[in-house]
């Protein structure tokens, strides 16, 4: 035990020496004594890197020859995090294996890494709900994705966060870390562009909006009293979201309470909207120093890699070998050229600038390499030109090849005379060539795009990329020599379809299979639609119409899957709340939906007798649903008025009406007394009077 005490005190000495001086406040000993924890989400929950991520999870893709997750863990460790929970979903076993081999799982690591895997995680929300369910976090924690590369010193933000939490208990739940970076900066991801309105004094977020795809922005300046009561606030568009946030334990609870929060954006939006009710606030910390970028698509991959090689992320430089991998140390020489051991360079080859070559790679004669990263054990032939090329491990490149701004994954092979234009991706094990030129933006993978669609319908990944790569796919499952060369192996996923009319930046952003410029709105749509909806409602539709559609969908599904009436009622009730529909409207819509149902299914050319034959069993089936809603006298009248409305529209089916009404009476949906009252009540129009007459005869 004595030795243990020594170890602890020594550790704290080192930690305070590494810049976390403020950790030993006298007053808040309890808070400070808790080791700093972190939640690392090693899954992106989207498929930006598809099809590359089919073989390797994104967190393990090499960036500067080191897996991305290692950068994130190093960042956490250097900020003093002592316990990290890594949540994996897609290819969890690979991530687990990687981490267990790495230095993070050694007993001497100052940062204890727990790996939590589940196939059930579909979003960040699920992860945080699990954090809450397992009550993993005890105090403030750092929330970060597995693909964040950063050297930001968050100790100050952490202190501010703790201070705020101490001042007014539990008001501030999250501090988001932003980095100053002017619009158009290459490290800014178009998808993540935000406009943030911040209270200048308290750094509280007042408004948060993604600008992507928007031409106009709404600021609730006039309406909101929050804006009005402030002396000074800032609207900032020069912030780069580092995707690092310091969260209070309440964040996990809030995710549990609001099961519809999927992403951090949902969370922020939800919190800001409900600020007055719940009293939770979100703050920002803006830093000028440091580097913090999330590798969210291949374009970002390109820019982060080059920043890394240009030493912006110091001390996380390639030659530092911070992962302690054997034999991965490299030497650094001028013009940012890094060479590991065992690299051989042929006669006349030039490494111009910003080049990183990992160990045991051999390069032929008269090559010209600039701004590139080359992995382990690659063999590169003569007269090869590489510019902005990212070549992973065990790649073979023959002679006379030209590669510009492309990614080549492990074990791919590029045969003689191949030219890869900008933004090509060769996934694992692909063979290209010889003597072929791939156009801009070509993606080649060993997986057939077709098989992908078949398999992955139930996949969690938001299917935004799916839309695009249908363009040029080949039906037959043989390699097309016209596309990949005579000896080539692989399928083209997406031919160059860069839209020239689009803005330059946007089309650049398409690299990395970002084919749908607005995935967010897309996924929202798919949530609101029932999967079997005949018509997809546009988001502008008013609630009543959407509700109508939903009820129809629900009943349809109920019929197909034989769902019990109780559950149908439950579903309709939740829909009622979701769209804020009054009970009266529910009644009317329900009645109309049921009465229209046969038309909906068979078309409007039914004869009255056919109609009745179809409708009566339905009524019998759904009688409990009606009985649930039709209780009070007024309900009966509402139901009948909807009934009347329906038949007013369908004059040809008047003959059927009597039978339907009779049936409803017999099923005890409607009471006799009410029918009579409805009948006796003054009819409003000529037609309805006629209708009553027609119907009254038979009832009596």
């Amino acid at each position: 035990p004595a030795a243990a005490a020594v170890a602890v005190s020594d550790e704290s000495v080192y930690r305070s020496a590494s810049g976390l001086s403020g950790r030993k406040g006298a007053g808040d000993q309890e808070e400070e004594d808790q080791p700093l924890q972190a939640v690392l989400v090693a899954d992106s929950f989207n498929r930006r890197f598809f099809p590359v991520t089919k073989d390797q999870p994104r967190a393990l893709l090499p960036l500067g020859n080191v897996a991305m997750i290692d950068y994130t863990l190093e960042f956490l460790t250097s900020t003093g995090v002592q316990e990290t929970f890594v949540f994996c979903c897609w290819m969890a076993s690979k991530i687990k294996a990687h981490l267990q081999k790495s230095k993070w799982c050694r007993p001497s690591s100052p940062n204890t890494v727990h790996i939590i895997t589940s196939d059930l995680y579909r979003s960040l929300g699920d992860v945080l709900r699990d954090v809450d369910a397992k009550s993993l976090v005890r105090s403030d924690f750092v929330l970060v994705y597995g693909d964040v590369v950063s050297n930001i010193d968050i100790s100050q933000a952490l202190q501010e966060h703790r201070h705020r939490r101490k001042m007014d208990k539990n008001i501030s739940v999250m501090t988001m870390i932003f980095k100053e970076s002017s619009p158009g900066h290459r490290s800014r991801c178009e998808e993540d562009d935000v406009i943030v309105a911040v209270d200048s004094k308290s750094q509280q977020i007042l408004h948060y909006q993604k600008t992507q795809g928007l031409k106009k922005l709404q600021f609730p300046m006039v309406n909101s009293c929050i804006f009005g009561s402030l002396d000074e606030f800032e609207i900032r568009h020069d912030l780069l979201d580092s995707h690092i946030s310091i969260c209070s334990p309440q964040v996990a609870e809030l995710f549990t309470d609001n099961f519809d929060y999927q992403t951090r954006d949902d969370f922020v939006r939800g919190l800001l909207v409900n600020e007055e009710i719940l009293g939770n606030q979100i703050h920002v910390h803006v830093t000028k120093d440091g580097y913090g970028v999330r590798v969210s698509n291949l374009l970002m991959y390109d820019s982060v890699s080059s920043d890394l090689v240009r030493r912006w992320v110091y001390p996380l430089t390639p030659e530092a070998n911070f992962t302690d991998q054997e034999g991965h140390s490299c030497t650094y020489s001028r013009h940012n050229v890094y060479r590991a051991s065992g690299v051989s360079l042929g006669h006349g080859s030039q490494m111009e600038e910003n080049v990183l070559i990992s160990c045991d790679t051999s390069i032929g004669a008269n090559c010209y390499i600039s701004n590139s990263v080359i992995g382990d054990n690659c063999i590169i032939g003569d007269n090869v030109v590489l510019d902005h090329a990212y070549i992973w491990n065990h790649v073979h490149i023959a002679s006379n090849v030209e590669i510009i701004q492309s990614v080549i994954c492990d074990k791919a092979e590029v045969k003689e005379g191949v030219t890869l234009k900008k933004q090509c991706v060769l996934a694992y094990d692909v063979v290209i060539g010889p003597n072929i030129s791939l156009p801009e933006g070509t993606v080649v993978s060993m997986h057939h795009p077709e098989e992908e669609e078949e398999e992955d319908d139930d996949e969690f990944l938001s299917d935004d990329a799916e839309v695009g790569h249908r363009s040029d796919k080949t039906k037959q499952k043989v390699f097309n020599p016209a596309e990949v060369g005579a000896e080539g192996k692989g399928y083209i996923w997406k031919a160059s379809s860069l839209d020239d009319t689009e803005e330059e930046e946007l089309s650049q952003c398409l690299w990395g299979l970002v084919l749908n410029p607005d995935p967010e709105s897309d996924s929202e749509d798919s949530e609101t639609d029932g999967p079997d909806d005949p018509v997809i409602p546009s988001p502008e539709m008013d609630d009543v119409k959407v509700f109508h559609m939903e009820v129809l969908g629900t009943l349809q599904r109920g019929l197909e899957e034989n769902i019990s009436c109780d559950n149908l009622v439950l579903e309709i009730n939740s829909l009622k709340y979701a769209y804020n529909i009054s009970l009266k409207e529910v009644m009317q819509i329900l009645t109309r939906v049921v009465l229209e149902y046969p038309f909906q299914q068979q078309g409007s050319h039914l004869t009255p007798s056919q109609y009745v034959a179809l409708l009566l069993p339905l009524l019998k089936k759904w009688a409990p649903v009606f009985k649930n809603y039709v209780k009070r006298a007024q309900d009966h009248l509402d139901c009948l008025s909807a009934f009347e409305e329906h038949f007013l529209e369908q004059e040809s089916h008047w003959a059927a009406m009597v039978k339907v009404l009779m049936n409803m009476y017999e099923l005890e949906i409607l009471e006799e007394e009410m029918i009579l009252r409805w009948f006796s009540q003054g009819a409003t129009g000529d037609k309805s009077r006629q209708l009553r007459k027609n119907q009254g005869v038979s009832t009596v």
Partner: protein
Amino acid sequence: MPGPYKETDLTERVEAFLSDLKRGGTGAGPLRGSAETARETTALLRKITAQARWGSAGDLMEIIRKEGRRMTAAQPSETTVGNMIRRVLKIIREEYARSRGSSEEADQESLHKLLTSGGLSEENFRQHFAPLKANVIEAINELLTELEGTTDNIAMQALEHIHSNEVIMTIGRSRTVEAFLKDAARKRKFHVIVAECAPFCQGHEMATNLSKAGIETTVITDAAIFAVMSRVNKVIIGTQTVLANGGLRAINGTHTLALAAKHHSTPLIVCAPMFKLSPQFPNEEDTFHKFVSPHEVLPFTEGNICKKTDLNHVPTFGKSFSDLDISSLSFFFFLNTSHFSLRISGEILSKVNVHCPVFDYVPPELITLFISNIGGHAPSYIYRLMSELYHPEDHEL
């Protein structure tokens, strides 16, 4: 049995030290006090000596060499780590020789013998001596005491070198020089000119500290060094490392300063404690330099585009417009910044290479005198000190 427990504790400490070295310079600027590094290294080596399992001096030297290689690899530019390891190795050799009964002088063979014998072989260290451990730890403790006193020892010599009404120039911030000047200021009045040493501008801190001690201080830009040099009586600088040939690896800008001093025949004095003496030569290119993030040279943000003051008036007249056109918004930023400075486009970083080196090499012929904790030496004498401090076989770890 606390044996294995101690082992893990030890590896933990070594790992912590290693990662600390690797991250060296994230928080407090690129230069951490090398005196602290030297002390930490020595303390760690003492711990290794005390806790690791070894039977003979040879085992211990092997362990220390192994750890030493890792430590030096963790931060090649921090030479004090390697120096301390060599010092400790030398201590072990001496203690071993003493235990065997042979005096230290006997090890010094004649030139002829050295040439023919081909050096001492490791087999000589296999003998076991019970008191060796205690002796080595004792000697390391002495080394630590010596390290504690270095700055004071150097500062004590200040009065011999600084005279009244002199104008002294220095560059950046060196703790040793600061102590040196402060010590002289107790008795003498003189003027110090500090070159700020952009982009990290440690010179500012130095100047503040000096003026607090009552020394008349002026800060100049690095570009003004040559112009001011004609008025300077003496240049006193610190250094990061003293190289084997008597040259320096010092903070960026020192070479300019040394050349200017040479041109004006101003004496250049280097305050360097002995632990900065490294057997490294300046031709080892890969470990010589240290390049840090270019952030200080060209801010990543490329100028503060969105100035707070620019936007403050928006809500005052903008209460009526709640819709803001995003294109006009960025245009608005553009207009505002163009008043302040030329806007650097976001593309600049991909087109321009920005480097931020930390060190300069200063050749020995530009240096007049070294002041170490054991006295003053000429650059040509450094090789001699080297052979006193380190064993020739330890130059290569």
